[in-house]
């Protein structure tokens, strides 16, 4: 069927054409060549998706990213939830708590890594606190809100922070160790259950 055509043989084009479901190259789409003006606001409104962040890390820079994204998506009218687990859970322990846990191992864990959002370490260039201190200075110079400030904003704007029950048990953390305004502790099944077609999940 292609023997009659004078078009040079293009193995890549042949391969692409062979792929099932590949869009036809020249198929005209419904949009006309002259691009229409963007629809006026309210007519073809983009419905924002729900946003679910799984905050696994307790590293300063990742916690910062979590807080920026959570507060921004709440500001954009997106229903936002943050599941806090593993090292992420340490972030939501009150800053004033020094040693947490019930047995010596849990106490040692908290002694080795001080809990609280104001005591986060960088995953690299920490240099015994020198890195985070410089990050804090630079942030202040450039008007960047601290993770703690962003957390307060996020909570004010209705972001739901859900602690992981299993990690709380493992670290021996009690509800009174956690900051005010946390949601009920939940398990992985609740988080998976939140993943509907309309939810964008992010693992940080």
């Amino acid at each position, binding site marked *: 069927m292609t023997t009659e055509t004078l078009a040079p043989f293009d193995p890549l084009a042949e391969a692409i054409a062979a792929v099932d479901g590949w869009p036809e190259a020249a198929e005209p789409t419904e949009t006309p060549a002259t691009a229409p003006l963007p629809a006026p*606001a*309210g007519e073809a409104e983009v419905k924002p998706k729900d946003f679910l962040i799984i905050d696994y890390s307790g590293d300063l820079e990742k916690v910062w990213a979590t807080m920026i994204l959570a507060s*921004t998506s709440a*500001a*954009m*009218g997106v229903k936002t939830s943050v599941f806090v687990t593993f090292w992420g859970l340490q972030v939501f322990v009150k800053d004033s708590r020094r040693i947490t846990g019930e047995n010596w191992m849990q106490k040692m864990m908290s002694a080795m890594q001080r809990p609280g959002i104001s005591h986060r370490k960088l995953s690299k260039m920490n240099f015994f606190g020198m890195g985070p201190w410089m990050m804090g200075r630079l942030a202040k110079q450039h*008007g960047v*809100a601290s993770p703690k400030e962003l957390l307060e904003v996020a909570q004010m704007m209705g972001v739901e922070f859900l602690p992981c029950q299993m990690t709380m048990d493992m670290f021996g953390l009690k509800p009174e160790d956690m900051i005010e305004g946390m949601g009920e502790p939940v398990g992985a099944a609740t988080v998976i259950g939140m993943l509907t077609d309309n939810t964008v999940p992010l693992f940080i």
Partner: protein
Amino acid sequence: MPVIEITQTVDARGLSCPMPIVKTAQAVKTLPSGAALELLATDAGSIKDVAAWCKATGNELVEQSSDATVYRFVIRKK
């Protein structure tokens, strides 16, 4: 062009992402529908961010201007 009556001004000068947007969202929440809000910002990212925020939330970006250092936006609540 009729002069838009500004109901509230949000001064986010000197603040970085995401605070101009967050402050705008908080302020817009308290305004009645149709009221106009003025946002002043120095964060260059806010040019794109304010437009994106308006698109996502359905509020209208009525005006946008800038002088040497300050960006000014006027947003009408839907």
